[in-house]
């Protein structure tokens, strides 16, 4: 079980580093990196703080400690995906409105150009 917690801590640490590098290279916007940083930090903390994990396992009535960490990881990532679905939906709506506005403005520009010529 210790080995599993070490792997989990390593993966969390890797995720943290990857997110930080991506933010530094401006591949991820800071506002969207916060969710990943919080999720990865929480996973890292839980992997290292075994008594806390034992307490959660006991609280949830789970037979194994590794099951607790995977259940928590699943829940955290579901929340992250849900948040990103909200963001993608909003971006899609904004994108459609913007494309329509560009087309209408282009139409008006052509109209003005034709009137002037």
């Amino acid at each position, binding site marked *: 079980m210790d080995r599993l917690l070490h792997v989990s801590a390593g993966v969390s640490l890797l995720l943290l580093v990857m997110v930080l590098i991506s933010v530094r290279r401006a591949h991820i916007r800071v506002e969207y990196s916060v969710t990943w940083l919080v999720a990865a930090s929480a996973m890292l903390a839980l992997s290292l703080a075994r008594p806390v994990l034992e307490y959660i396992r006991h609280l949830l009535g789970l037979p194994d400690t590794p099951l607790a960490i995977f259940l928590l990881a699943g829940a955290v990532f579901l929340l992250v995906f849900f948040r990103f679905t909200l963001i993608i939906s909003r971006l899609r709506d904004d994108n459609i409105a913007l494309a*329509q506005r560009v*087309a209408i403005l282009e139409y008006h520009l052509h109209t003005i150009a034709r009137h002037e010529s």
Partner: protein
Amino acid sequence: MTIEAPGPGSLLVIVPAYNEQGAVGDVVRELEQQVPGVPVLVIDDCSVDATVEVARAAGARILPLPHHLGLGGAVQAGYKLAFELGFEYVIRVDGDGQHDPRDIPRILDKLKESGAEMVIGARMDADRTRRMRTLGARFFRVVLRPILGKTVNDPTSGFVGVNRRALALFSASFPLEYPEIEALVVLQRRRFRFEEVPCHMRPRRTGRSSINGLKPLSYIVHVLLGVFVNILRYDGRWRRRLRLGRNSDSSAGGGG
């Protein structure tokens, strides 16, 4: 070509088109023949073929979308422009040649006479060549009957005329993926009316429908979900209004 500032009772015909180079030219020419003097606006949904050139050569005005938005996004762009330009009525005709422009005067007359916000050019004759479509229309007729409070014979028809009130509504809120059926529910939420006019539909001139293969199943799921979401939105507003009404009643009663 440009669209001049329209007068009262003005009509614009919009033609959403995506890769319709084989049909859109004939559609535009036929429209100009059957409804002379009525401007025709082709909304090009970022076609990769010569749709724009063919439509322009036939005499249409073009609204070029910068990237592919899908049918609902294209139609809404046309509604937005028509609303901004001040048109009273807009009739949508598909770019594949299925809709007969000779039916346009009857749709326009119905819009003017009935005062309904939307008039659907409905396929009344059973189309044996497109059994899936007929089955789908029948299915949605049954589903929509209790929601709309009346029977709609052809809820999937894209041959649709709207007046300025509906234009204002659809400019702000219009279903994007499969707009025909959801638009009816959007109208119903506003207590707007729709009527139907029996029309003759022709087979597509070129290409094939975007709803083919396993897509009818996906279409049904998407539309049902869209209808359901629209009802939820309507119910939410209705409950809020009811709550506000109750609050104002209780405050008017002196909080007793």
